[in-house]
Structure formats: structure tokens, C-alpha cells
């Protein structure tokens, strides 16, 4: 008896070995520098991406893969699955879910299929995809998994501290970042992603204060089950942050990811964050 398979995209930041272990298919996004286009993590490493983001004359854009790429992935899975759950970032930030739905129409499978708005980004989305794959391995069907995803959506949080408001403002996707904050004085915005909403947690001026405020946010959730430390090409600061979280979870159980360029483009280099599942 074959099970439901989980598909996500590279914005989930799921490490390759984790995806492989649980049979999760990860569709790569595109990163464009001007007219040059690269497949995320396939043709362009993340350190290289952030190097070019910080120094290059061209501001990168990111793009959802064409529906055809999804269709190919789905076609490869149809024969060996009892259904497919495809989970992606919020619709109002990205066209990924739409591309997935179009790809499914092209693939023309007969098995149950759902494309979900995960309401999350980076490992926030990754944790949901992983839990869904674990539940699917335990025999859950598409309907049960949809309920699981909804329930998880309420418990998954991403908190982040950026180096400045500049990239967020330039991206234009977050209303509260459009004001004047950070124009006269260096400030580091703190933000929370939950159920598709990116909200401001205020601002701090130093990296140390940023870490303390992120830790306080996580502690405020009570028990947490899974922790991933996120960074946009700031591995040393991610290490520091992970050590500061040791009282919540042994360091070896904390995943660390250099976040997806799709998000990195909007937050800029040097950001740190955390994706947790509330207990």
C-alpha cells in the first residue's frame, strides 16, 4: 500500500538529507540576477547568492518555477502515491502555489491532490512539510493531512531580526516597513511570521538586543517541540544564537539553515531568525 507524498519548494529550506529521508520532493525556485537565471541551490549556492546580493550591482529577483517543472515532479510521483499534498508559502507573497496547481492540471493525475497555503516561510514551512510527511508515512490520507496542516499552522512560528529595514522596505511586500523607521537611525526590525501574516515586533538597535528579544519571543510560547535557527549568510551569528537557545533544546537537535534567497532578497544579508513548533 503506497502512501500520500509531500511536495514543497525550495523556500521551505528543508535540508536535502531530511527531505530525502522522508521522501519529500523539493521543487527549486529561480533566482535571477538581471537576465541570468539560476536554480536555487542547484545552480547557485546560497553563500554565493548572498555575496552577490550584498555586493552586486544588480538587485536579484526570485521567481516561481514554471508549472511544467511541477508537472514533471508530480508525474514522477503519481504512480507510487495514494495522493499528493503540495505545500507552499502564502499566496499573497508568492505565486508558487498557483504554479503548483497549474502543474497538477498539466500532470493530469487521478489520485487525490491538495495544494496548501502553508502560511509560513523558510523552516516554518519546512517543519509543516516534514510533519505532514511523517503523518503520511503513518498512513494519513489527504483529508487527514489537510486537517493536520491547519492545526500545525496555528503552532508554527517564525521570528526574525534583520540588520536593517532597507531590504524589507525595498521589497514593498510588508506594509509596516514602508514608513520612515530606520531612515535616520540604524535600527534592526524584529518580525514574526504566523498564519500567513508578517507582523512587526518592534525594533532594536543592537545585535545583542535582537538575540535577547528573539529568545524572549520563543520563551513566550511555552513548550517548543522543534527548533530551526535561520540566517541569511551569517553563520557565526547563527551559532551564537543557537548557543543562546541551548536551555530550550540541545544544540545538536537544532537545525541551522542558510535561508532561501526568495526570503533573503526581501530581508537582506545578516538576518537571524528561528522557526519553531509550539508544544
Amino acid at each position, binding site marked *: 500500500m503506497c502512501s500520500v507524498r509531500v511536495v514543497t519548494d525550495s523556500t521551505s529550506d528543508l535540508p536535502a538529507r531530511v527531505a530525502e529521508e522522508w521522501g519529500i520532493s523539493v521543487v527549486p525556485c529561480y533566482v535571477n540576477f538581471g537576465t541570468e537565471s539560476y536554480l536555487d541551490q542547484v545552480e547557485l549556492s546560497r553563500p554565493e547568492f548572498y555575496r552577490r546580493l550584498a555586493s552586486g550591482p544588480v538587485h536579484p529577483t526570485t521567481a516561481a518555477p514554471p508549472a511544467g517543472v511541477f508537472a514533471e515532479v508530480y508525474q514522477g510521483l503519481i504512480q507510487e502515491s495514494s495522493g499528493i499534498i503540495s505545500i507552499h508559502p502564502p499566496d499573497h507573497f508568492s505565486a508558487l502555489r498557483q504554479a503548483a496547481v497549474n502543474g497538477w492540471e498539466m500532470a493530469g493525475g487521478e489520485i487525490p491532490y491538495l495544494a496548501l497555503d502553508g502560511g509560513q516561510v523558510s523552516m516554518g514551512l519546512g517543519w509543516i512539510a516534514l510533519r505532514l510527511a511523517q503523518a503520511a508515512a503513518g498512513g494519513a490520507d489527504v483529508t487527514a493531512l489537510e486537517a493536520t496542516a491547519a492545526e500545525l499552522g496555528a503552532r508554527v512560528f517564525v521570528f526574525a531580526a534583520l540588520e536593517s529595514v532597507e531590504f524589507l522596505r525595498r521589497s514593498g511586500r510588508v506594509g509596516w516597513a514602508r514608513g520612515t523607521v530606520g531612515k535616520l537611525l540604524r535600527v534592526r526590525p524584529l518580525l514574526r511570521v504566523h498564519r500567513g501574516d508578517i507582523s*512587526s515586533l518592534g525594533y532594536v538597535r543592537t*545585535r545583542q538586543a535582537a538575540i535577547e528579544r528573539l529568545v524572549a519571543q520563543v520563551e513566550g510560547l511555552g513548550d517548543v517541540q522543534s527548533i530551526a535557527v535561520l540566517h541569511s549568510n551569517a553563520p557565526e551569528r547563527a551559532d551564537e544564537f543557537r548557543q543562546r537557545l541551548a536551555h530550550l533544546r540541545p544544540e545538536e537537535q537544532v537545525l541551522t539553515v542558510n535561508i532561501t534567497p526568495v526570503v533573503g532578497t526581501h530581508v537582506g544579508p545578516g538576518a537571524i531568525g528561528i522557526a519553531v513548533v509550539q508544544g
Partner: protein
Amino acid sequence: MTNEGETGQAPENVVLCEGRGLKQLLEAGMAWLDHNHQAVNALNVFPVPDGDTGINMLLTMRSALDEIADDESRHVGKIAQKVAHGALMGARGNSGVILSQIWRGFARQIEDLEAFGAREFAAAMREASDTAYKGVVKPVEGTILTVIRQAGEAAETAAQAGDDLTETFGKVVSRCHQAVAETPQLLQVLADAGVVDAGGQGLTLILEGMLRRMRGETVQVDLQLPAAAELEGAMLVHVAEGRYNYDVQFVIKGYDLDTPVIRDKIDSMGDSTLVVGDSNTIKVHVHVDDPGIPISYGVSRGTLVDVVVENMQEQFQEFVRTRAAAEASPVQLLEKPQVEPGQIAVVAVAPGPGLASVLESLGVARVVSGGQTMNPSTEEIVAAMEEIGTDKIIVLPNNKNIIMAAKTACELSGKQARTVPTRTVPQGVSAALALMPDGDLDAVAEAMAEAATEVATGEITTATRDVELNGVKVQNGHYLGLADGQICFAGPDVAEVIRETLDRMEVEDRELLTLYYGTDVTSQDANQTAALAQEWYPHLEVEVVHGGQPHYYYIMSAE
């Protein structure tokens, strides 16, 4: 006053005081304070350009009397109520706020009276004292509070002895002088600075002016402060300014100098005359309108050295000018933050246009201009609160001397308002960053107060007199560094003072240094200072921001 005619002469003693009488008394009290307010300003514990107690109390009184300018009511209770309201709205600085509390208590006690006599006056003074004490979270003795309390006690004792209001007032005033003289024994910082308490002195002057009016003595001409106020070591050199504009000092060197002749001549030119010395050296001090007259005369007697001419009106004029400039500030580069009804908005006080812009850029809805030497009134803060389209307000006073006015404004505004008692602009910036407009008011206020504690503040200014405080010898005119409000270093070399102040701010353990430079510093100078700071502390991220504050070369924030 029942025994007093419209001429204002009151040669006989007063038994009852009704509305118009109180008005006349208060006018006299204000006039007397006005003539002596610079002497009160000089009673500054810190040798820094600071909130001037004399001016703050005077402006508070002026606001109180504006309220009854056209009121000829005989009902003393009604007049007093209006005075209390005016004082409350115009209160500036901590001393002004306490003064307004005094009038509030006074007015409450006589609310229903047509006129008051000695007993009622005593009860009102007692109530004034109680109200003043209640208005302060942690009452400190050796301040205006001690003086009003003793005034109340003296009034009660005197009223029991007889119903003569003038006599009661006289005893009150003489007890006030004594209480003021004793303030340095109660408050170490006063003793260290060699001054008596300025707020207590201001209150005494007001009551004394009132007494002079009752006794039919003039308050319109300059007179020396009574002997009781001339304390050893107190900064009471400028005892009787007001009529004359210039304070002139010089030393005449010559031979066969006739001190009494020169004294008479100098005295005929102005007032506050001090001429001392011997036949070879005479020290001259006089207040005049034309400094050229005494100086020319001095030159005719011998060689002049150590000539100092000070414009005594300048400080007040500068205060007025700075405020006007701040109010007319063209710096409106940034859009004002939008506040929705139900959201929390912040009103902050800032001493310069650059600092105002910084605060606005962080989401502060209204900035009230004011700071070290120009404390905004309660009313200005209330007005700013009322302009905002939400009923949840947090006020950031950003100066220790504005905290009380901010708290009073919160009480008066009719909105749900909280004061986060920030003592410096950097604390205010930190607090503003923690604003969550959609949060719970108390929780947000608490988070902002917490954030304010996370920053160290340094200030670099010029010492305004010689003093030794906190073991630091301060020389007039030298650069002076303060770390979190405490004097930490003084000297002639600005770089050294900055470095020592940074050291005292423990920037070694900090990450980010922000230099807000004032009106007396160019951006090039500020950048050079930043480069120096970077050299001294390579680990720091250093940021240079235009503050535009007067008097303070730099306000520094370390986080």
C-alpha cells in the same frame, strides 16, 4: 483685602483677604520672583545649562495669573481655583509642577470661602503642603517640599496666636527663609554644590512678594534680597536683577584710590553695587544699563583689569529665541506617523530639530520641543496629546526635569495616558523603539520603560561655574562630561572629556555608539569625533546623527 483701598497702600494690618486682594498679592509675589528669578536660576546644583528653576517658576506663575487677568471677582475661592488651574496648565519643570500642586491644595481648602483670614490661610497652607507632598512619588527633604511644609506649620502656629493675617504671613516668610537656609543640611547635593534649594528659594520669594504687598512695601524696584537668603557659599551674587541689563565687573589698579568716593559714584550708576578694596586695587561690581558708563569712569581712576560684562537678559532671551526657533523649525522632511484610533501613540519631548526628526522617524506621533534649558509646560504636552486621534498615549519626557510635567499632563489629558520616565533623549529613543502601537497600554509602557534602561547616556557640555561634585573638580568654561546624568569628568580638552565620558559609560561592553551632535558642532567635527571614538574602541559601531540641540555639543548613546 478688607483694610486696603484701591491705591494698593496697606499701611494697616490685614485681617481678611478676598478675591481681588488675593489677586493683588499674587501679582506682587510674581513680580518679586520676576525681579529675583536669575538669582534662583543661579542656584543650580549642576554646573550645566539646565532647566532654570527661576524661569520655570516664573512662567508657571505667569500662566496662573493670566487665568485671572480679567477677573475682578471678590470670591476668593473662585479666584484661587482659577489660579490653581492656570498654574497646573502652565507648569514647567519639576519646581513649576510642585508649585502648581501647592496652589491646587491651597485653592481646594478655600474653595467655598468668600474671603480668608489667618486661620483659613493656615489651613490652606497646610493643605497646600499635603497636596505638594502627594504629588511627588518619593518626597525628598531639603527641597521646596520642606519649605512649604514649614510654611504651613508656621502659619498654623501664628494663626493660633492671633488673627492678624499680615503677622501670620510675616512669620510664614521668615520661617521660609530659615527653611531655605537649612536645605543644604538636609540634602547633601546642595551642600556639595554650595547652594540652597532653588525651588524653595523661589517659593519663598513669591510669599515674600505677597508679604511686601500686604505691608505696603514696593515690589517694583530692585532691592537686595533679605539677609536671611544671603548664605555663605550660596550663588547669590546676582541678587537683584531685573531693572538693569548688564552685570559689570572689573578691577581698578592705581594708587591713592578713594574707595568710598568710587563706591558712591558707582552706586549712582546702577544697583547691586559692590565696591571693595584698598588704595591700590578696587574690585567693582554693578548692574547697569550701559556698561560703558562704569567702565569709562573706572578708566579715569586707574588701569582696568579682569573686565567682565554679562548681559543678564541674554539667558532669558536665548530661551525665548531657542523656543521660537524650535517651534518654527522647517525640518519636516519626514512624513508624520499615522495613528489609528485605538492604537497607542507616543508624545515625546526633544531639545533639537534633529532629535525631533529621529523620534518622529521611529513613530513618535508628536514631538514637543524642549529640553535642558527650555522645559515645556504641562499645557504644551497636553495640547500635543489632544492633537492625536487616539485616546491611548505614552509620554516620553526625555529629561529628568520634565518628568513631573509629563505626569501631570497625563492626569489632566482625559486620555488613557502613561508617562515612561525617560531622563535622556537616548533613553527616549530606546523606549520609542519598543513601541507596539497595537499592544496593551500598560504592557507596552512597561516594555518601553524596560528598553529605556538598556542604554547608557553621555552628555558633553560646558561648565557654567566652578564647583567640585562627585569628586570632580569643575572649572567654569571647561568641557564637562556627564554619564547617565552624573558629572564624571571636566577639562579643557574636549577629546579627553569625551573619551573619559565614554569610558564611564562602559562602552567597552557595548556594541553601538550614536553621537547626536548639537548646534555648536559641525558635521565635520562630529565625524572627526566619531573617527576618534572608533580608534579608541575598534569593536564599536559608531553612528553620527544631527541632533540640533543647544548647549550640549554631544548627546551620546551606547547600547
